[in-house]
């Protein structure tokens, strides 16, 4: 029981490598069910983690501490608190769903595809649970390798451009983060996160460190203007890749702001606050307009993701408990909704091999189940009350209005634009008359697809009706983190 957290990191990585090995030995068989079994095991381990989690404890649980590199005082130090636990669950849950649908979305080298997702999910859980900054950095960078291969190998026509852009953008940010961590190590003599929290720093140092970390995390979230890799990566990635990118990888940026940048440099954060909020508002409003004019469905959802992540950063950077809570719920909720939307676009793409909006019209008459679910998720995407999308955005706007009326005004304005692009998309592809003759031959959702989407729909509803299921877990830990963030270190 002591090493359950290590188990949840290394089991998927180990099983993924095993799958890779199996596929080298037997090249004929696709190992779909074995991959599913492996993914399910990994998911169940994180469920066990959740069941054993003590919600009243604000500190880190399941902590493991072993010496890793003695010369630089780097430790294998992992643990989870209320902030990381829901994201870990989300990671292994979505990874399982992605493996489940893999058979429909790729036609060749299936075992390697699934192995990449298993390894990726282990590494992402590692990022969420690392308490030593170098360990965190290693997981963070290692994560790029499977994603790089996923987009480049199974992606669309322009995949090479997209995947190299994705890799270089991310590495640019993370190298600066590494420099910042080493700088902090010089001051404290260890790479432990807890020591970085306690370290007093001058305002100038804090601003520089914050900017270095900002480069890493803002690229990942992504914030305007470093978002340009995301639409490319999303459009070219295979379905599973888009789902993981939108549902989890973007959250890594938000999580890292909460865990690293904000508590390590609270005064730098305060100093840069107007700048950061401006960037978030630009992302929310401007990107919503950009989404409106897209002709590619996947690109539209990709831009909508950026806009929604703008809500997350806005909630975080207004620095008050409401904003923080809203941003967190928005992260989880966006994880479900964007995953579902990318799954659905994948479903269409598998059938017609097109992502152009103009190629689809009147889907509801041939695919009624699909139509119903798509309308539901589009509504959730624009924040319909009762769905999780509403809770997050509403609380963030409440948090913003405490800070400044105009922040809330611009953020709320986007609810309208969000509704506009989501509903217009629905109108164009789901309703209307069937014009394309190929549409008539389309089959409705099969069992696997309906199962995945229903599961996601249920999660959206549960979080929407009872957000307490998340806030109960995060409450204690976020209180503690907020006191760190609001406490001056000069």
């Amino acid at each position, binding site marked *: 029981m002591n090493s359950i957290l290590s188990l949840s990191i290394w089991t998927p990585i180990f099983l993924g490598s095993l799958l890779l090995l199996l596929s080298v030995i037997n090249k004929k068989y696709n190992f779909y069910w074995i991959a599913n079994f492996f993914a399910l095991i990994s998911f169940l381990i994180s469920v066990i983690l959740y069941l054993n989690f003590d919600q009243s404890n604000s500190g880190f649980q399941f902590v493991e501490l072993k010496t890793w590199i003695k*010369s630089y005082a780097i430790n294998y130090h992992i643990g989870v608190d209320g902030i990381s636990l829901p994201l870990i669950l989300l990671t292994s849950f979505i990874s399982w769903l992605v493996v489940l649908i893999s058979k429909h979305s790729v036609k060749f080298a299936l075992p390697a595809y699934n192995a990449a997702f298993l390894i990726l999910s282990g590494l992402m859980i590692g990022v969420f649970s690392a308490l030593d900054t170098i360990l965190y950095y290693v997981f963070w960078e290692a994560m790029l390798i499977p994603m790089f291969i996923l987009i480049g190998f199974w992606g669309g026509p322009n995949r090479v451009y997209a995947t190299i852009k994705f890799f270089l953008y991310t590495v*640019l940010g993370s190298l*600066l983060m590494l420099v910042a961590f080493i700088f902090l190590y010089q001051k404290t003599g260890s790479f432990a996160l807890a020591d970085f929290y306690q370290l007093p720093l001058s305002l100038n140092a804090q601003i520089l460190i914050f900017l270095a970390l900002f480069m890493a995390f803002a690229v990942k979230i992504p914030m305007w203007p470093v978002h340009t890799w995301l639409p490319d990566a999303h459009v070219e990635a295979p379905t599973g890749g888009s789902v993981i990118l939108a549902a989890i990888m973007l959250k890594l940026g938000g999580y890292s702001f909460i865990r690293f940048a904000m508590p390590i440099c609270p005064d730098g954060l305060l100093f840069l606050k107007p700048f950061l909020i401006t960037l978030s508002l630009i992302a929310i409003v401007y990107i919503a307009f950009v989404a409106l004019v897209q002709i590619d469905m996947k690109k539209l959802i990709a831009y909508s993701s950026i806009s929604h992540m703008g809500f997350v950063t806005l909630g975080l950077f207004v620095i008050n408990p409401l904003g923080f809570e809203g941003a967190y719920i928005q992260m989880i909720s966006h994880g479900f909704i964007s995953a579902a939307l990318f799954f659905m676009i994948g479903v269409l793409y598998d059938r017609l091999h097109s992502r152009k909006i103009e190629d689809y019209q009147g889907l509801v008459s041939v695919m009624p189940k699909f139509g119903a679910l798509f309308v539901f998720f589009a509504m959730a995407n624009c924040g319909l009350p009762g769905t999780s999308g509403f809770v997050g955005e509403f609380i963030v706007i409440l948090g913003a209005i405490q800070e400044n009326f105009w922040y809330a005004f611009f953020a709320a304005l986007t609810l309208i634009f969000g509704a506009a692009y989501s509903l217009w998309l629905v109108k164009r592809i789901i309703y209307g008359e069937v014009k394309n003759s190929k549409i008539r031959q389309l089959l409705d959702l099969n069992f696997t697809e309906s199962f995945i989407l229903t599961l996601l729909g249920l999660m959206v509803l549960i979080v929407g009706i009872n957000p307490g299921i998340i806030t109960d877990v995060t409450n204690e830990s976020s209180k503690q983190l907020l006191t760190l963030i609001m406490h001056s270190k000069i």
Partner: protein
Amino acid sequence: MFINLISNSIPEVILLCSAMSVLLLGAFFNNKNSTSLFGISQITLLACAFLTSQGWMQEKIYSFNDMFVNDSLTIYLKLLSYFSLSIVYIYSRKFLVNKNLLNGEYFSLTLFSLLGVNLIISSSNLLTLYMGLELLSLSLYTLVAYDKKNKDASEAAMKYFILGAVASGILLYGFSIIYGLTGSLNIHEISYALSNKELDPYVMSFALVFIVVAIAFKFGAAPFQIWVPDVYQGAQTPITLFISSVPKFASVAMLVRLLYQSMDVLVFDWQKLLLIMALLSMMIGNITAIAQINIKRLLAYSTISHVGFIMLGLSTGAVSGLAAALFYIASYMLMTLAAFGLIIFLNSEKNSVDNIHDLAGLSYRHPWVAFLIMITFLSLAGIPPTIGFYAKFSVIQSAIQFGWIWPSVFAVMMALIGIFYYLRIIKIVYFDNPKNSTKLKLKNEYDFKLVLTFNVLGLIFVGIFPNILMSVSTLSAALIF
């Protein structure tokens, strides 16, 4: 008495005997049955490694009137050079047999250059150092021109020889100025004289610049890197593999003996020289590599940038910087062995892989080799969890510790540029459509493939458990003072 005299240098004596006997035996064994030569050389290396490692963690031992020293640094670097030469033999064997080039001279020349490397590593006197350097350089010139019929190789050897001879001359000139000023050739006496005598600083900096330039040339650091791409491309791939691994240990040792130990007083003067050369090497190496399509030339520029990183560590003039550089050189050795080993593996009598586009779509046909290439190039790029990351990490750590934040930022930006062309190789291997590589027939050399696999997986294994190697390099660095 004689035994006492040489007891400190038994590995070198064995190397010398073995190099000469291999040369003699080579006259009786021709190319096809060179197994015995291969065996003798490998056993020699094993014996040397065993004898060298005996002195680990013991006090410094001087012999030959303080001209020859054994300390922790010598053991670390010597063991690395034995190891890499042994791997070089394994990788180069079949390739050279096919080209009808595997004979006594090859083993003899490589063993002689190893002897030269050992002499440089163990030198505590400028004369020993110069002797080792000439032994090394002359063997290398010959090795580059080893394939008589190859015009490119002869051209490269000529270039290398002329520039190398000039560099040796420059080094000697620097030595003579130092001798004139301090009256000694012993590195400790030079150090003592520099700190206690009133010396003309202008003349002294003259000597310093000469010495640093010569070392930079031998190391292949910018702006003295011009010979590197030509020699790497012109020489036979196994020779390139040898040149890119073993002599680098000698260059590090030369830097340590001359700058860290004998001119330690002038640290503020040579620090900046090294820093500028380090940053320049990273810039020139990484940016020029982007334009390369010949794979050996690309690796040559990549080597220049790695040399830049090693120099950045050494330029701090501190123990932590030296430790970082020692760790870097070990990981660089593993990576360069893997990279050139893969190129040798892909080249056979049937097909030649010169151009990076020859690798297009390799993953469709040979997934395992493609995987090995990916890991190797990710490691060269410094992406965790491979060893290349820890190497860059430790160097940048030591630079920041010294207060060089902006040079470190510059270094990581250059590393980012480097990532681009390493990724391009992976892109070609994995994402490009197979055109030529469908024809690429690989030999079923299981022994070669096995060693190569261990070599590459070692990059990940040491990447996940870097503790031991880091501790050893830190310890070796700490004990030299």
